[in-house]
């Protein structure tokens, strides 16, 4: 990041003081939600709701106080300095607020209000006026028409998202505010943590490339997930994404796959190079991974944020169920991963451990047989990971009466700590009774999926097969 952008991002993500303009008393209003997000940490309790520890001001000329905060009639009435503002008032009043903010020497404005370029020509004019006034006052703008910005590690929730997710290592940059909001709720249940969530809105000023730059320098962020419908400045995006992806993986879900109908395409090239295909080419050239669905986006983000990458294609599959082992091996072969035959010396080591069942598979997939207890998993996982010719691993666990999901998970966590340079992905199949093991894996950032197809999909990416 340039020092200028770094200063802007600092003011955005951890302002010393922030004012909510349009801090309404109505609990159903956007402005009320934003203020509550800052004052309480969230609107609905999530277990990660901690009040923001910067100074929070409420601006509302019609109220005395809201949520225990004294209301100021306007920005100008606030005695101290204001670094950041969140604007949640009707669009037509926003230019006026920008003028006041300029006088107040505000650095950044998150404009939540809708009713700008997304509405057409009139709205676009209004947006241009806002940007012009902001620029004249030296204010950088996020939005308009955004959900807001959440930075869980800073306990910063300047949004009308229903709650705050746990802090974590995934950044989410979204052109859809509503999608981001739903992801927050879903992440709570799936126990995903975020380093920040930025909804981009109309990108009148700050755009996806600026947040990619921030993600690159942000120490909490390990992977960046994006939902994009289109970028305005393709060259800037390509250049930034290329730079960022060398250090931090970027995964994009692109909306707008289908072409607008009715347009006659005159050339062959035109029909082969539609807008979506061009985006995919750009992603590829920028080293950006492409996701196919929302779930896929976060499956990949989770794996890329927590697991090392390898150039090697040799995968070992360990399972206590033959069928799932076969499926996993099929998917691996289709993905271009090599289910490498186990060498004689590896089999000897397994035998020597004294933990193998007489009927174990003696091959890859390594079927430990259904009655495998954690000690058998432990011998198998560690023996195979210790072999230099094995580059990655999928650990499958099906549930039998004696299966100890919790301990099996601990075995995997420990082995991954011993061999941190080899990606490990788990398929702990089940639901209610596999939950303790699954929770342990999640807690230690070992990706786990309920379907081997998903596990193979992420391992394919971790193994640099695109």
């Amino acid at each position, binding site marked *: 990041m340039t020092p200028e952008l770094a200063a802007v991002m600092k003011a955005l993500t951890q302002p010393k003081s922030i004012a909510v303009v349009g801090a309404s008393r109505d609990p159903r209003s956007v402005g009320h939600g934003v203020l509550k997000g800052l004052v309480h940490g969230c609107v609905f309790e999530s277990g990660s709701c901690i009040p923001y520890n910067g100074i929070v001001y409420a601006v509302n000329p019609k109220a005395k106080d809201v949520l225990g905060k004294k209301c100021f009639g306007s920005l100008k009435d606030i005695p101290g300095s204001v670094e950041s503002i969140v604007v949640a008032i009707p669009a037509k009043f926003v230019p006026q607020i920008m003028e006041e903010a300029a006088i107040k020497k505000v650095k950044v404005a998150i404009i939540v209000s809708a009713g700008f370029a997304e509405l057409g020509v009139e709205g676009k004019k209004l947006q241009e006026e806002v940007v012009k006034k902001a620029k004249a006052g030296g204010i950088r703008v996020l939005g308009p028409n955004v959900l807001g910005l959440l930075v869980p590690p800073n306990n910063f929730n300047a949004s009308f998202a229903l709650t705050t997710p746990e802090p974590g290592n995934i950044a989410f940059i979204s052109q859809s505010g509503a999608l981001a909001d739903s992801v927050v709720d879903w992440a709570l249940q799936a126990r995903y943590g975020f380093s920040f969530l930025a909804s981009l809105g109309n990108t009148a000023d700050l755009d996806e490339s600026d947040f990619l730059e921030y993600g690159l320098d942000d120490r909490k962020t390990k992977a960046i997930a994006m939902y994009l419908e289109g970028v305005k400045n393709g060259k800037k995006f390509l250049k930034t994404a290329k730079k960022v992806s060398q250090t931090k993986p970027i995964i994009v879900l692109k909306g707008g796959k289908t072409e607008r109908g009715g347009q006659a395409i005159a050339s*062959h*090239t035109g029909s082969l190079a539609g807008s979506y295909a061009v985006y995919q080419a750009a992603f590829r050239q920028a080293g950006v991974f492409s996701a196919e669905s929302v779930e896929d986006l976060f499956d990949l983000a989770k794996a890329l944020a927590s697991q090392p990458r390898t150039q090697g294609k040799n995968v070992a599959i360990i399972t206590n169920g033959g069928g799932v082992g076969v499926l996993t091996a099929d998917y691996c072969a289709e993905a271009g991963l090599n289910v490498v035959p186990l060498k004689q010396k590896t089999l000897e080591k397994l035998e020597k451990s004294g933990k193998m069942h007489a009927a174990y598979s003696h091959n890859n997939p390594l079927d430990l047989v259904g009655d495998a207890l954690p000690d058998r998993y432990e011998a198998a996982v560690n023996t195979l990971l210790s072999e230099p010719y094995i580059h990655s691993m999928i650990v499958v666990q099906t549930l039998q009466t004696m299966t100890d999901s919790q301990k099996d998970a601990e075995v995997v966590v420990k082995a991954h700590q011993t061999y941190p340079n080899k990606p490990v992905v788990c398929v702990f199949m089940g639901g209610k009774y596999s939950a303790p093991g699954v929770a342990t894996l999640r807690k230690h950032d070992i990706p786990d999926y309920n379907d081997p197809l998903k596990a193979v999909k992420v391992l394919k990416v971790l193994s640099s097969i695109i």
Partner: protein
Amino acid sequence: MTRLATEEEIEALLKRYRIPHVNEVCAKDLPRLLNASRKLPTPWVLKIISRDATHKTDKGLVKLNIHNENELKKAFATIQKKAKGIRIEGYVIQEQKNGVEFIVGGKVDPVFGNVLVFGLGGLFVELIKERSLRILPIDEKEVRTMLRETKASAFFTGYRNQWVSEDALAAFVMKAAHMLYHEERIMELDFNPVIAREREILVADARIVWND
């Protein structure tokens, strides 16, 4: 304003970028066609020149496997009948080349700028849709990755007795990329088919849309 490049403009452009084209001669009428044909090895291909026609083969406006003057006269008559309602600006007679058919094309994307397309070409190009794309500029290493991404790469090691030199094709695509990147007037470009046989890579049909 956009408009289609003329045959002469295309010829000059290909020459400037040293992009090889199938041997061909343009003529305005049958006597001149017959005269021109004497310089070309058989078999021949006869096509019309018209800005109205994109999918010429579909409309019966391309005749293949013409071996002598008599067949040329017959092909000429057939094409004229099929071309009713289409403005004919002239005719092209080409030496017919056989080989693997590719498409090399380009366009200006509103977001990312110049985009290069390579894929399996010919008549079924839009049905097969076996192609890869790159945003320009790109280097030769990236061109090779691009070529290997599609099923077209099967021909680099030989498929059904047909072999295409990867080096020659990469060099050809590189030239096309170079042209597309440097000629700012080009809005759209179709080399389809590009006929490839061993080390010989030739444009058999070119279509360019200028932005004037």
